[in-house]
């Protein structure tokens, strides 16, 4: 039995699978934290403070694991840094940019998923913009030449085409 037949027989199955996929993608099915591989037991003074904590740990890169944020890493150092962010935020009452500066001073630009624009980081900011511009130029060029070729139908071709359309 082919996939199409299966899906044709149980359209509901297909729909629930698609729905499940959407939910998983949005992180609705799994509780927050579980989807990211860790849950720390931490207390906060306010919902706002907890929101800031979550925002911060999702914006710092785990120094050990190269491409995971602090929120999503199981590495011991990521846990330490999460607790550090919590301490700076809750106990020391630092502002977000002070916490960012604190980590940056010790772990470098590497921990920032939004590094400052500098002589070392210019290309990670400019290359995507450049690629975007190239993509726009290519698409526009293709559209233009496609339009030109469609209008450059010779009179004979045009007549044949018209004849074919009439015949139908």
């Amino acid at each position, binding site marked *: 039995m082919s996939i199409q037949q299966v899906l044709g027989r149980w359209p509901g199955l297909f729909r629930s699978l698609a729905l499940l996929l959407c939910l998983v993608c949005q992180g609705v099915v799994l509780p927050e934290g579980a989807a990211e591989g860790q849950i720390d037991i931490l207390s906060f003074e306010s919902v706002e403070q907890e929101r800031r904590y979550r925002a911060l740990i999702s914006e710092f890169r785990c120094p050990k694991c190269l491409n995971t944020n602090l929120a999503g890493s199981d590495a011991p*150092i990521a846990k*330490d840094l999460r607790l550090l962010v919590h301490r700076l935020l809750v106990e020391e009452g630092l502002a977000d940019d002070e916490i960012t500066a604190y980590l940056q001073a010790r772990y470098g630009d590497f921990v920032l998923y939004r590094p400052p624009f500098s002589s070392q980081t210019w290309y990670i900011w400019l290359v995507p913009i450049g690629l975007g511009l190239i993509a726009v130029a290519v698409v526009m060029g293709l559209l233009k030449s496609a339009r030109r070729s469609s209008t450059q139908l010779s009179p004979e071709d045009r007549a044949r085409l018209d004849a074919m359309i009439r015949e139908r």
Partner: protein
Amino acid sequence: MIVNRMSFFIPLGTFLVILGIGYVGFSLDDRKQLPSALLDKPFPEFSANSLLDPELRIRRQDLLGKPTLVNVWATWCPTCLSEHDQLMDIAGMTEIRMVGINYKDDVEKAQRWLAQYGNPFDLVIRDERGLLGVELGVYGAPETFLLDAQGNIVYKRVGDVNPRIWRDELLPRFRLLEVEMVSRDEAS
């Protein structure tokens, strides 16, 4: 015709560019090349207990006055054991001050470890919670810092201190810092 040729070469070209970037990107071992944010900066202020002498507090000023090699180690770190002989050698053949930071470790295990394999350090700092580690931007063990006599970090190594690192990275800097050698045939 032009459109046909373009639509053939654009995906191919894009694919080749991505392939090239990927090849270069994945062959860079950039973790080892992470510049320490603390390079050329003063060693941070700290005050911590000694691992071996419960009465002793170790502070930043204890690291000043002569060049110092600071090694972050732990018993849970196999690479630390593999570099241990090299550290023993460095301690034996130079007059540098060796300071260990026992990073996130069990105190008794760490003490046993030093008794068993030998202690290359003049001072061993106890950093059970990794607080000094955070100040130093440590993200694993072993890590090694070289400090000049004024307590500035002049070199940082993430990973083991092996004979190659000793010969190519540390020894030239020891000479620059005018660290005295114990014997003359050390550079082998």
